[in-house]
């Protein structure tokens, strides 16, 4: 038990440190926050215009606004920076320190992500959500269970987002650069995750592809559960899919880890 508490303490402290480093530069926070607000407003007005023009018949404006606001909040949790962090450490050579700490590399990278997720939540999502609730309105979930499902799936989405990014980062052990693959994958991901549009607005073929990929668990699945678009009867299936994807990604990482890190080359002496 003491060991578990000790580990937990190490993890929370580590996360807190990553969080603290993000408080250092204030200007970037205000700029980010301002940008998030503007982006949200732009989407809200875009949807109001589109729906007012009668483009879509099965979606109401308040539903779309709810979707857009929730996606804006989730974004901070599922936007893993692991690939970028690994590449940065490899290029600077500071990766040496990640290999001599009494924590596994994977855990350090995850805590780094969590630190940035929580700091973004506090400094971006929370004010964004408050602003949205005050000025544009967000639909409440149909029931508490819907909300819990949403929270669980979002946490799963965080892990999936972390693992995909982390695996891309491992590729950098071969190539020194993960940037381009990361960029490619995040472009594909923004389609397949439902970051900007719910799947029910997708053409049939795109929806079919998106349903097969794990990225739907990052935006679409949690939000559609929250909104009641996915009925509670389908929640167990969604959670199972989440667990299966996490297991697949964990296995892939496990197989790649030794191969890639044996190839470590430290830059700059």
């Amino acid at each position, binding site marked *: 038990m003491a060991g578990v508490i000790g580990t937990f303490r190490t993890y929370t402290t*580590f996360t807190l440190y990553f969080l*603290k480093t993000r408080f250092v530069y204030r200007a970037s926070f205000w700029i980010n926050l301002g940008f998030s607000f503007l982006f949200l407003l732009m989407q809200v007005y875009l949807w109001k215009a589109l729906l007012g023009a009668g483009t879509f018949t099965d979606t109401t404006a308040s539903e779309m606004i709810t979707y857009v606001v929730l996606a804006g909040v989730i974004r901070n949790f599922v936007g893993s920076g692991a690939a970028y962090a690994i590449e940065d450490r490899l290029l600077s050579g500071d990766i*040496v*320190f990640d290999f*001599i*700490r*009494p924590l596994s590399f994977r855990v350090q990278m995850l805590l780094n992500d969590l630190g940035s997720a929580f700091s973004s939540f506090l400094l971006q999502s929370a004010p964004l959500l408050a602003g949205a609730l005050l000025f544009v309105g967000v639909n409440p979930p149909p029931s508490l269970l819907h909300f819990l499902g949403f929270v669980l799936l979002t946490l799963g989405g965080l892990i999936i987002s972390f693992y995909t990014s982390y695996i891309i980062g491992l590729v950098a052990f071969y190539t020194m650069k993960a940037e381009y693959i990361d960029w490619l994958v995040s472009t594909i991901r923004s389609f397949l995750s439902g970051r900007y549009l719910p799947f029910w607005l997708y053409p049939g073929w795109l929806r079919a592809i998106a349903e097969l990929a794990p990225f739907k668990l990052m935006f679409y699945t949690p939000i559609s559960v929250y909104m009641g678009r996915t009925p509670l009867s389908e929640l167990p299936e969604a959670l199972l899919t989440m667990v299966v994807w996490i297991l697949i990604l964990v296995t892939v990482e496990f197989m790649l880890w030794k191969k890639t890190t044996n190839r470590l*080359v*430290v830059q*700059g002496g």
Partner: protein
Amino acid sequence: MIEVVNLSKTFRVLEGKTGFVGAVKNLFSRDYRYVDAVRDISFTVKQGEMLGLIGPNGAGKSTTIKMLSGILMPTSGKALVNGIEPYKNRQENAMKVSVVFGQRTKLWWDLPCYESFELHRVMYRIPEKIYKQNLDEFMEFLELEEFWSRPVRQLSLGQRMRAEISVSLLHNPEVIYLDEPTIGMDAVAKERIRQFLINTNKSRNVTLIITSHDMADIEKLCSRVIIIDHGQIVYEGDFDEIRHRYGRERTMVVEFGEEYPEIELPYGTVIKDEGLKKSIRFLRDQGTAIDLITTLGKKYVIKDVSIQEAEIESIIREIYEHGM
């Protein structure tokens, strides 16, 4: 304590083609070159020893340290530190050792100095009592208070290294690897670090493995040295022995009481003549300094004498150039 057996590391290096055509070719086919950074080296280190690893740039010192500390996986051979292979048990190894890189920082760059200490305390699960005891000691010897609450990025090189070494010792490691710990520092800061390392080694019986370009570091700190060149050990032994075996040349500076345009020497040659002061170079096997000065003293009036030992740099150069 530390046992290194036939340790080797080969890197695959991209052989880039030059020029624009080459750059385009690089996109399609790549040529790799294999570089043997470390070749089949073996040595042992005892608990509490201070070992110096020296050699020119690219000799394989840093690569050796990185394998010993568990960062790099050797291509073949193995290293045992405290009975475990560090690169296979990184986390277990991390609790018992520390690595300090003079050219990098493990401190939290943007946060005040004390935050890094606090994080280490939690990360290495250091008991409160040991933490406080260690911290008090470092505070006193290395005067950390003067920059304790300043962000690490604002520290001077010397201050940063003081913090770096302190933080590395917090969890009472049994081995510390120091890769160029005094690089870029001024003489005073260097001396301070050296003195602290000597004290630490004595009071804690901690094993130190140091690479440095500054021969004075090695000379003052290490009782034993390993010279590495082209990934191989070219010398292993006492520091004094190197001086003894290779420092055959000696220089004696004699200050005469009167002007002698020409002096008669039993052996050696005058390499510098500054009037009253003359520098005489002779080889150790030709005779002793005492004999030389006694002979000279019979014929001339001598005011003062000093003997310059051979510079260690020149000794190392001699080994590099001529081998053993």
